[in-house]
């Protein structure tokens, strides 16, 4: 279970990344953010952002046109 869930379904670039970053800012290391999105761009944007920021993508799945990412703050 994630510490925070960001529901960015329906939102387009750049909002999923921005909302994830905002949610992440309020957490401490080891806590997680779950992102729900429908923007296909998140498939490349979220792993890139997570890696560049030094966080860890600990889970990723998709189904019914929705993408789910679980990111752990490092």
């Amino acid at each position: 279970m994630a510490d925070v869930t960001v529901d960015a379904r329906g939102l387009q670039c750049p909002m999923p990344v921005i909302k994830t970053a905002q949610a992440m800012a309020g957490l401490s290391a080891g806590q997680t953010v779950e992102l729900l999105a429908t923007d296909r761009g998140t498939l490349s944007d979220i792993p890139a952002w997570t890696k560049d920021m030094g966080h860890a993508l600990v889970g990723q799945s998709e189904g019914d046109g929705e993408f789910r990412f679980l990111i752990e703050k490092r």
Partner: protein
Amino acid sequence: MTTSTGSPEKASEQVPDKMVLIAASGDLDKAWPVLILATTGAAYGMEVTVFFTFWGLGILKRPDAGITGEDWRQRMLSVFRRGSPQGLQLSTLNFGGLGARMMRDLADDHKVASVQELLEMAQQLGVKLWPCQMTMDLMGLAPGDLIDGLDEPAGAGSAISLMKQAKISLFI
């Protein structure tokens, strides 16, 4: 597993990387990418500054600024280039404003954040918005004609000084 350069987990604790965008166009189709990149840069923990010059300064005009300037030429400019996020036009296929309106409706339908929303988001994220002093003088714009929450007007020297240190500098 390949080792990446540097240590990203430490990056946020150090001095943030800088990103500078020069917004020189007052076209809707340029204002959008400027603000999308600015907000995303901020989401990357970067210190982002957008320098608004020439037509780009129009993005920062208040929607209710009305006719601005003292000189008749400045006043005429403000009539034909209303500026403000709501007044921006497309660089192509504009058809006297019809194209811009259609594009805004389309963006709305696809839940693409508007220029106005992105501008507010940029301010919330701490993006620095610099109006160009020379453009303000040239076009007869007073600080009161521009939206609130901007940084002090600056010039090319400040922009270059910042770009010298910046990791990303773009002219849009």
